[in-house]
Structures are given as C-alpha cells and as structure tokens.
C-alpha cells in the first residue's frame, strides 16, 4: 500500500459533496496523485452519501477503507462510516454534527457555516470546507481560486469573491490544523487531467465514430448517453431516448443496418431485456455496440452500488449460438481504446460487441496524462452494392461484405430466420449448416484481433493472479507494493473470446487466484471452462462496494 491520506466527506444527496470533491480533485491533480470515488444511495435527496478522496505521492488507483480525515455534513452522517474509523482518524464538523460520534473517537469542531456567513452567505459553506481541506494538505491556493473563479464567473462577481473569501477563511484555519498530514506531495509532478470512466468512454465512443445512440435511462449506464447528448453539439450524434430497452437495441441494430454507427447503454436489468435482440444481431450478422454498466443484482438489487456480476449474462445473452466479443476497461485510459475498438470490431466482424464496465469504474475520478486514439477504428466496412448484391454471400474472407439500403444498386435483404446468401428464408439443412458455420467461424477470424492481457508483477509466472475490468487498479497497487508475494498479474481487457496466447501460461501455472467483485466467481468459471483446468483460489466481494486497497492487501497477506 502506498503512503497516502484518505479524506471522506459524508452527507445527504443534494448537500453538494460532489462539488467539494470536484474542487479538491481538480486542484490536487496539478500537484499530486489523487483518486476519488463516491458512494450514493438510491434516492434524489436525503439519505447518506459519501465521497472519498485519496492523495498520495505515488500513483494510486484505488480507494482505502480506513479513513484519515472525515468531514460530516449533517447530524446523521457518521453512523454508516464508523467501521472505517481508527484511533487517529480525525472527524470534523459543526458541533451538532459531532454529537453522534462516540467519545472514543477524535473529533474536531469547525464552524464552516460561520465561516461562510462571515464571507457573506451561508451558501458558501462547502467552499469554506474546501478551503479548510486545501489548507490542511497545503494545496496551492492559487490553483484552487482559479477553479472557483472559473466555476462561478457566470453567476457574477459577488458570488466569485464571496466564495474566494470563504475559501481563504477555511484555508487559513486548515493550514494551522494540528493534525494536518505531513507533506504527501511528490517533489516533481507533471500536472495531470482528472477524468471519470464516463468521460473516457464518451470520448472513446466518439473516437469509434458513434453517430447514433438509442437508450433507455438506467443507472449507471445513463451517463454515457447524457454525455453523448452533450457532445452532440460538437459532433454529429443523433441521440434518441427509446421507449424501453427492447426498442433500444432493436433501434441500434436498425441504425447499423441503415449505415449508422450505433450504440446503446444500459445496466444489467435493461440488458436482460435486450437479449432477444442480441440473438437478432447474431443471425443477421449485424454490428452492435452495447455498453453494460454493472451494478449489484439480482433485479433492482442495489441500484447505485457496484459489482461485476453480469459477465455471465453478457457472455450467454441470446438464444442460439453466434459469435460475440466482450471488452472491459481496467485502466482509465483503456476506456478510449476499448470503446472505439468496439465499433471497429462490431463493423469488421459484423457481431455484437459488449463493453462491460461498472458503477465504480465509471464514476471514480482518476488521473491521465495524454490520451491516445486510433483513427483506424473510424474505418467503415460498408460496401456500395451492385445490382446482384447478396447480403450473405459466402465470401473468401469468411465475412459477407455488408451493404446498406440506398447506397448502391442492390437490395439489402436481412433475415432473422435462417436464410440463403440473398437473405431469403430457407429451410435447407445444408444451407443452415453453411450459414451457421460461416457465423461461428468468425471466432477463428477474430483471433487475429485479440486485445492481449496486461501482464505485470513477478516474471516467474508460476503464481498467477487473474483479473478483469475495474479491479485492475487496486490489484496493481497491492502487488506493486508487495512484490514479495511473487504474483504475476494477468489482467484481461478482452474478456471474451479469451486469448489463446496465455493458454500455456495458465495451464502451466502452479497456482491461479482469481479476484472478482461478485459472489460466484464468474470469470474464474470462464477460465475453467475455456482452459479445462481448476482455479486454485477465488477472492470474491459482493456487498456492493469495490475492493479497498487495505482490505485487499490484508486478504492477500493472510494466505501467503
């Protein structure tokens, strides 16, 4: 575990926790390593939400369970967090908010509201707190003030100067806090951008050429749609709110058919409704890009929390048999590659491609330096049709060239029944076998386009630790700080089909540990199924939270 400090803000939905988070992270990203994430309840106002901001002098990509500094926003903000308090945690808040804190804990009363009023308006309270924290950790007040100015300029000069005053008042107090951490900032640091998974996926979709989105709102999948709607002012994207998820994927398939690069986004429950259409994409050989943002199920489950329990659903969605691809971003920057690549692969192989993320990965804020995109992924595989065009021609390449209606002299006949080369319904046994094998043969073709796993850690490769998706960061951090364990970390960004390149590695390993954020070990099962071996150990978590770095280190340390 890296040297770091963990600050947690706790309050109600609507109390502005997120604003403080954004201010802090944006300020700090210019001078330190920072990572933040939030926990929210499934309600619009009230309840108890919290934000964790972790700061370090080394790169970090994970949350910590144990809290160093806790800021309470109201009188019922403490309870839920008490297991995360240790004896030197400092708990801040207005006097009444601290009442519920057991006396054994260290509290510190700060009258943020008074500071705000002093600055001219009780509404500046959060800014005063921001100032306090910035002071405590010695953040650049210039950077902070620039941000405040930028944020409030539209609201007028008074608001700007009021907020700055509140910030200064807080900052001054924070600077002299006796419990403030010793410097945690790296000596040399290139300022970085801070982004969420949602930001990166949005850009990835644009880099993949998305120009049509049909989706039905469902957390945490909705943000991608919302952000693409925002971006539709800069690039051509037609965004349509579908009447339900069934419509959404059928519309996406219809849109590809007519020449668009289309995307839908949803969560497990919404995706469950799409499964018939996934099969439609399978037999019609239609491209489709589907973003499935996981949250804990079954059914409505814990709608605002995180989990990795929809891998099976995505793997096997749809009746009958047909090829598909599943990509799951691990590192933040993978979001661009994964999402843009999804469009390319969908178009190239005429298959549904799934991007599997989760609430935690999407909503965490993390740092990047420079982002890359591959313009190749914009390439369109659509052909102009000739008069005698046959949509399902048996082509040497193994893939029938895909025309679209209205572009060329041919007709584009697409059928959900088994069909002949022209796209007409057939019940011929031999045609069935030929078409079915043509479709399934794409699994072979796709082998040349596999996104290889990220391999790190011990070079011996005897003690493997396998992972996929959002657990990447926390596992990396745990292993980088504990090379003594001797794990080789193999992280799969392409979750399906699994690469054959690592088959030898996996079959030859002495032990295989799989870490997942679910209760049954779905990826471990996929490994067993694919390679016909037994996984030695499954580390699983399924309470709705992501893994915390300290928790994971303890789990791994215990059984070494």
């Amino acid at each position, binding site marked *: 575990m890296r040297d770091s400090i963990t600050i947690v803000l706790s309050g109600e939905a609507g109390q502005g926790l997120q604003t403080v988070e954004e201010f802090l992270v944006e300020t700090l990203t210019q001078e330190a390593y920072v990572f933040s994430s939030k926990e929210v309840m499934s309600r619009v106002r009230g309840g108890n939400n919290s934000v964790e901001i972790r700061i370090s002098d080394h790169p970090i990509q994970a949350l910590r369970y144990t809290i160093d500094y806790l800021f309470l926003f109201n009188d019922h903000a403490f309870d839920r967090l008490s297991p995360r308090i240790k004896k030197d945690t400092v708990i801040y808040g207005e006097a009444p908010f601290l009442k519920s804190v057991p006396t054994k804990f260290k509290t510190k009363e700060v009258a943020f509201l008074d500071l705000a009023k002093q600055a001219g308006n009780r509404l500046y309270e959060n800014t005063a707190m921001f100032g306090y924290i910035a002071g405590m950790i010695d953040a650049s007040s210039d950077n902070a003030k620039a941000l405040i100015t930028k944020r409030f300029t539209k609201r007028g000069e008074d608001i700007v100067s009021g907020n700055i005053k509140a910030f200064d008042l807080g900052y001054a107090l924070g600077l002299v806090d006796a419990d403030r951490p010793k410097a945690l900032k790296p000596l040399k640091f290139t300022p970085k951008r801070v982004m969420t998974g949602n930001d990166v996926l949005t850009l990835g979709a644009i880099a993949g050429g998305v*120009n049509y989105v049909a989706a039905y709102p469902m957390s945490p999948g909705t943000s991608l749609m919302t952000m693409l709607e925002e971006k539709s002012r800069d690039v051509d994207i037609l965004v349509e709110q579908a009447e339900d998820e*069934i419509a959404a994927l059928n519309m996406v398939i219809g849109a590809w058919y007519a020449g668009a690069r289309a995307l839908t986004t949803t969560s497990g429950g919404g995706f469950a409704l799409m499964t018939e259409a996934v099969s439609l994409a399978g037999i019609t050989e239609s491209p489709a890009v589907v973003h499935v943002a996981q949250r804990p199920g079954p059914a409505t489950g814990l709608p605002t929390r995180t989990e990795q329990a929809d891998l099976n659903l995505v793997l096997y969605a749809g009746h009958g048999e047909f090829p598909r691809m599943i990509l799951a971003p691990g590192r933040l920057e993978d979001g661009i590659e994964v999402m843009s690549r999804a469009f390319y692969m969908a178009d190239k192989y005429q298959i549904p491609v799934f991007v599997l993320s989760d609430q935690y990965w999407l909503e965490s804020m993390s740092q990047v330096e420079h982002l890359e995109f591959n313009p190749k992924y914009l390439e369109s595989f659509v052909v102009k049709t000739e008069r005698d065009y046959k949509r399902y021609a048996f082509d040497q390449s193994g893939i029938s060239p895909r025309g679209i209606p209205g572009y060329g002299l041919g007709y584009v006949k697409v059928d*959900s029944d088994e069909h002949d080369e022209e796209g007409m319904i057939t019940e011929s046994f031999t045609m069935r076998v030929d078409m079915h094998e043509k479709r399934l043969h794409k699994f072979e073709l796709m082998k040349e386009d596999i996104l290889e796993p990220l391999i790190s850690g011990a070079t011996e490769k005897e003690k493997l630790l396998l992972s996929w998706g959002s657990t990447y960061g926390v596992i990396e951090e745990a292993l980088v700080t504990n090379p003594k364990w001797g794990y080789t970390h193999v992280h799969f960004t392409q979750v399906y089909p699994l690469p054959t390149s690592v088959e030898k590695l996996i079959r030859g390993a002495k032990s295989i540990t799989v870490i997942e954020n679910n209760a049954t070990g779905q990826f471990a099962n996929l490994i067993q199924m694919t390679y016909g071996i037994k996984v030695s150990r499954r580390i699983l978590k399924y309470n709705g939270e992501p893994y915390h770095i300290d928790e994971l280190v303890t789990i791994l340390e215990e059984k070494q």
Partner: protein
Amino acid sequence: MTKFEFNHDIDIAWCPGCGNFPLRNILIKALQELELDPTQVVFSSGIGQAAKMPQYVDASYFNGLHGRGMAVASAISAVNPKLTVIAEGGDGDMYGEGGNHLIHNIRRNPHLIHIVHNNMVYGLTKGQASPTSPIGLITPIQLDGVYNQPINPMALALAMGATFVGRGFSGDQEKTKELIKAAILHNGYAIVDIFHPCVTYNKVNTFAWYKSHTFWLDETYIKTDKLAAMKLALDEEKLACGILFQVEGKSYPQRHPFYKGDLTPLYLRKRDPKVIEKLINPTK
C-alpha cells in the same frame, strides 16, 4: 411495370385463398404507381404470416423479431430520412408483442408507413386470439371464446396523436391501393390497418363478414376533424374504411434537433479525426 416484382418464380408460404395475396398485389401496384425506386425502399417487419410480405416484394428489407418491426423501422428512417420506410406486419405482431413500440412511435411521428394486416387472429402460430380477435371467437387457447375487449387500432392511433389514420380491406383492392399511396405520400407516421381474411384459422371474420361490416368514406368526409374521426373509429358495427384522419404535423426529422433541415443520411457524414483529437486532448 416490373419493379418490385421478381424476375423468377417465388415460393410463397401463404395458404391458398389467403387475404395476403391480394394485399401483396395492392402493395406492389401502389409502389409501382408512385414510381418509387426500389433501391430507396426498405421494409421492416417482424414475424408472422403477414410479416413475410417483404420476402415477396423485391426491395431491401429487415425481417427482424416478432413485434419489433416498428422499432427497427423507426431507427432506419431516423438514420436515413431519404428512404421510403415501410413497417409491415400482422395484428399480433404489431398490436400484441409490439404494442409499446406502436404507441411510442406514434408519439415520435417518424417518417414511415405502418401497414398492419389485420386478420384478427394469430395465423402463423395456428389460430390463437390476436389483440383484434372479436369476443367469442373460439381458438385453441380460448376454448370458450375470446373474452378480452379487442383493441381498436384506429381509436388508439387517434388518441395517441397520429397524423394519418387509415383503414383498408384486401377485398377492396383499388381503394386500398389508393389508401396506401396516400399513406406513402404523407409526411410523418401513417398507419394503415388492413382487414383481410385468414381462411385457415378465422372462420368468423371471413371475406363476406368484412364485406358486410365495412364501408368506405366518400369525398364529403372531412378528414381533419379528430373528434369526428374518433366517433367513426369507436363505431364497431359499421367499420369505416379510407382515411379516417389526416393532418399536417412536423415529422421526426423535422422535429429532432439533429437534422436542422439538412437531411443528409448518417452514413454520408464522416467524422473528422482532428475534431476527435481536440475533444480528447483539448488543451493541446
């Protein structure tokens, strides 16, 4: 004229005597008379006997899932508003399984024609009740007769704000053809419900039954009065055929902020990598 017809024999999967045959003639004639270019016409259908129609008309089609023809059609026309898009299927397909797409697409007013073959029964799956089956119809699953109130597609479309609401009958070929032509020429969503007998499974709503229960609206009928149309639609004794209602309205590509008057289809709009670079690394 041979457009939309095949230049070879085709094997049609309908029963001899089925109302789908005259419907096919009507449809092809309508398309021919409007001199549409078959490369610019796209059918979208689901599953059912009616939904097989696109197989038998030589043009592009997307023959998708039961009930989802309208969703696919809506996206096709959204993405390329220059195409003539026809969503076609049976009463089970379009009013049953596809009911939610029906009501919400009427709200969108997509630029497409919606043709529903209304034989008041599920043909392909062998005779169960459809949403338009009359009360009392005996079927393999309703052995004591249908007991649910049948759907009234005309009243429903009117209530949902459709801008073109029409009904035809495959037994009245000339008039039904003109009705379909008018629907194709309409700007926005046009629903055409077409009665036709299922000779195999519906022994109640036969050719003769339709003949005696329908009448055609004449020129004196004022088709812009929604309440009058609703009154006609709600009359289930004498079933009005023709255009029950038609008004002008902004169609989807005119309403959606995306197009802003430029109807260039999406496939012709290329994305500029420079713009992407700017969005991805804005500070550079």
